[in-house]
């Protein structure tokens, strides 16, 4: 039994120490935003944020996460109150099948937290590790630029959340 802090809440998790975080998120905590794509850390569909950094949850055993803060897309915003990054992706209609989008948003979110005004080249370099097979890359790029602008305007900031 270990304690896993996800989206600001402590969860008691009964899993083998080498269980990938992705399985615990989806199966035990029913947080289904992060997707299983390749299971090999090659596609980025499973990207979540750990202590502010984008991490591939399919190759991250939970034993590494004692005392660390995990954030999934569910922790950023909701359908009713989307976070800027989510609003931007909706406004740019950046999804086609949508399977990669949660991972794209999480990696973009980590980038924007570190660098609020990334250049096109910085966004491309950052998202290089996340694959999209539908071909919505240009919209994804526009969405990240839009999120960058949204985050700089007060009205777009997400509703205050109790993030400990």
């Amino acid at each position, binding site marked *: 039994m270990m304690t896993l802090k996800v989206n600001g809440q402590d969860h008691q998790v009964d899993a083998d120490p080498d269980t990938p975080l992705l399985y615990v998120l989806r199966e035990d905590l029913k947080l289904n935003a992060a997707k299983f794509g390749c299971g090999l850390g090659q596609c980025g569909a499973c990207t979540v944020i750990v202590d502010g950094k984008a991490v591939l949850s399919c*190759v991250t055993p939970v034993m*590494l996460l004692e005392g660390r803060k995990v954030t999934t897309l569910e922790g950023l915003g909701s359908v009713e109150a989307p976070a800027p990054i989510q609003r931007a992706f909706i406004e740019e209609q950046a999804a086609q099948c949508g399977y990669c989008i949660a991972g794209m948003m999480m990696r973009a979110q980590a980038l924007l937290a570190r660098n609020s005004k990334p250049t096109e080249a910085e966004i491309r370099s950052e998202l290089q590790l996340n694959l999209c097979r539908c071909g919505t890359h240009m919209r994804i790029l526009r969405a990240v630029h839009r999120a960058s602008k949204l985050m700089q305007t007060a009205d777009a900031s997400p509703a205050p959340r109790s993030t400990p």
Partner: protein
Amino acid sequence: MASPRIIGSIVAIAVAAGAIAAAAIVWRPAIAAVDPPASFDPALVKHGRDLAAIGNCNDCHTVRGAKDFAGGLPVPTPFGTIYSSNITPDAETGIGRWSEAAFRRAMQSGVDRDGQHLYPTFPYDHFTHVTDDDDRALYAYLMTQRPVRAPARENDLKFPFNQRVVVAGWKLLFLRHGSYQADATKSAEWNRGAYLVEGLAHCGACHTPRNALGAEKIQASFSGGDADNWHAYAINSQSKAPVPWTADALFQYLRHGWHPDHGVARGPMAEVVSNLSEVPESDVRAIATYMADVFGVPTPEQKRRGEEVLASSKQKPQAESTPGAQIFAAACASCHETSRAPPFGGINLALSTALASPDARNAANIVLAGIRPTAGERSPIMPGFADSMSDGQIALLLDELRIRFGHPPWTNTAAVVRDARRTQTVSLERDQP
């Protein structure tokens, strides 16, 4: 009282002679600025392009993502940081007003057009062996590149190394001029390989250890050195590669960047193999032929061990329950313990030279930063674990793997990982969120 005057004269003559001798060692004239030829023979330019690729010139003379050959790349040395120079044909900040003779002098003697001694981070101790014809082709290639205005960055060196006169002394001790002398007992291919390896390709600049004055230890040629906070493996009989190298394996690795028995060329070697993928195949074969001879014929024991490792790499290992083994099972095994052969899966780590090497840096660097896809090339990908694993966790993992594959334990893994995280910051920040 004639004697003091005589003594005085002798002293004066001695001082003057000393000064002249010192000047002869230190002073080099400027070579007049010229307007270079307006055009060059396209075949010569093409030949120069291939030679520049073999010389890996772009690697040091280009900042990642910036303009080709514009210099400014920091090169860490034990004496401080040296910044590479702008070798584009820009008239003011590059080599745009250099004559071919000035270029040749820089290659052969490490002196710039103004007569200043160049630091031997520019490996003229190797380039001095390049033929005049090849220098002419390199000059033609560089002078036809796009000029980039990029002033030199000031080196950050401690005294006395910030005095370029020191370099003149270094050259007296360590620079041996002379063109490559063919060995008539060897094949033409071997000789071609030797000419390239010892000269333009300057393999020893990284793969040979250096002495306290930063010169290659000639008696320890190719027995392993440093490159940009990576360990450059021993590539002679002291190689730690679990499976002995052959000329064919070397060719495949140098030409395509990976080999199923050895893995992927990364770190500073990535740029080398990227460059070698485009040069004439015969030159890569020649380098492989010569280097196979430098590695030497494996001993029966090395051969037997290599076969054992290859066989073991195809077996399913025992599951272990140490924390390091658990990390491996969850984070690494899905690629490194599968039946998918490289490049579709990671190599079985029984074959890893990084783990077999006495220096833990390369293994630490790779786990932290992973292997980025190379733009425009088919290349392997490995995610970096810098943001999911702590230094202690990576050390546990590496120590476990080191023992699992039968190597004596490293003693300082945690410290190496900590340093690797610090020294790889640039690539981590660029590559990883």
